[in-house]
């Protein structure tokens, strides 16, 4: 007949021996080398936006392509690259003390963005330096972390929908009864 006390009596010395060997092993702290084989945990920038602005379209486009290629060459993953619509500026200079227009200018500020993903923190300053070294005249370079506003800017507003919503508001808002 099995009794619990007999089982424990048999298992106890074995358990004690096993525990004693593990305890002695813990005194000598040794970690297998494969745990550190991948290197230390490097902090990364999840998304970086490299924005380029300029008045000259061809120069800006070529620079944008060069930045894209440079990032790929440096081993940085390029998530996306896009263009935002240009900002059109109309400038009028007036003759002194009059309303007569002396000259008119039409300027367009074009923009390109290259989005980089998972940039290691040791590589980001190097990339920025290289991008700055190749910066042509007349181009402004900005490097920012990605914000929701940067995606919002890309959407083209639906003017028709806005107009209809305005009309609805004028009529007194949407109907409150449930249907």
């Amino acid at each position: 007949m099995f009794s619990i006390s007999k089982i424990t009596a048999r298992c106890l010395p074995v358990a004690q021996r096993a525990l004693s060997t593990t305890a002695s092993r813990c005194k000598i702290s040794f970690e297998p080398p494969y745990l550190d084989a991948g290197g230390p945990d490097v902090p990364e920038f999840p998304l970086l936006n490299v924005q380029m602005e300029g008045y000259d379209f061809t120069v800006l486009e070529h620079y944008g392509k060069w930045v894209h290629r440079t990032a790929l060459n440096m081993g940085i993953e390029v998530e996306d690259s896009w263009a935002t619509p240009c900002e059109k500026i109309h400038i009028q200079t007036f003759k002194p003390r009059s309303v007569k227009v002396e000259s008119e200018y039409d300027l367009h500020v074009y923009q390109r963005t290259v989005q980089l993903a998972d940039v290691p923190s040791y590589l980001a300053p190097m990339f920025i330096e290289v991008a700055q070294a190749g910066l042509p005249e007349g181009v402004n370079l900005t490097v920012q972390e990605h914000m929701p506003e940067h995606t919002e800017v890309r959407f083209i507003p639906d003017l028709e929908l806005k107009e209809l919503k305005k009309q609805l508001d004028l009529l007194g808002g949407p109907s409150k009864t449930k249907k």
Partner: protein
Amino acid sequence: MQTTRSLPRNFKLISQLWNTRRQSTAAEATGKWQIVGAACITRPPVVCPPMTPLEAQYSEMLATVEKELSLKSNHELRHEQDLMRVEFLKLGDTEEVDIEEASKQTAVEFEDACTEELKAFTPAPITTEADKKNDLSSLNRALERSLILVVKQKLGSDHQWVLPQAPWVPGETLRQTCERVVRETCGTSLKVKFLGNAPCGYYKYKFPKQARKDGFIGAKVFFYKGMVREASGNVQPGQDVIEHQWLSQDQLDERLKRSYADSVSRFLVSDK
């Protein structure tokens, strides 16, 4: 059973421990190294360098090819219409001529007004006053090259031409050391932007035997790169600094010591 199997493994561990303990005592016998943070403050080029003869020739060729292949612009079409209008007026064909259009400014007049306005505009000179005087301590010189700040700093009992440096103090990060270096050697008016938290270069040197204090046999210098713009502010030399100069990369090799210049040139991006 378990003990006999683990015996050879334990023996390996013990021998490993013994070896590491021996190595650490060897390092302590040689001495401690002082950690020093140094700031490599760079002003990137302001203006593009002029084109080489080959580049100028090629760009000219590309421009002519582009012009030949392009369509006529609005300005050129307007000029052609003006000429046609003049012809019609000569022949007396007033029906086909739009008199309102004729009274407006012609394309030629518009072009002349534009060229006059361009002549009236003088761009800023590429060779500044500091270039003419060869004033090496001004930031507003050598606009086509990138400039690096080098100071004559007191290290121990001697003055040396180095990148501004200061020893690391426990309780701060190396980057904070470099920011302190900038404040102490260049004053608070110079706005430097450090790009990363990791150093970009390294240089090791031993102190001369008389200058070895606090058990330090030498120093290990870690360089951090910082950017400055031409309108960032002036350098106000601090306590240990006698002189400061903004040098381009080839001038650096002449000014700094050979081994130091080698370590520095390893992390500089060439601007040519």
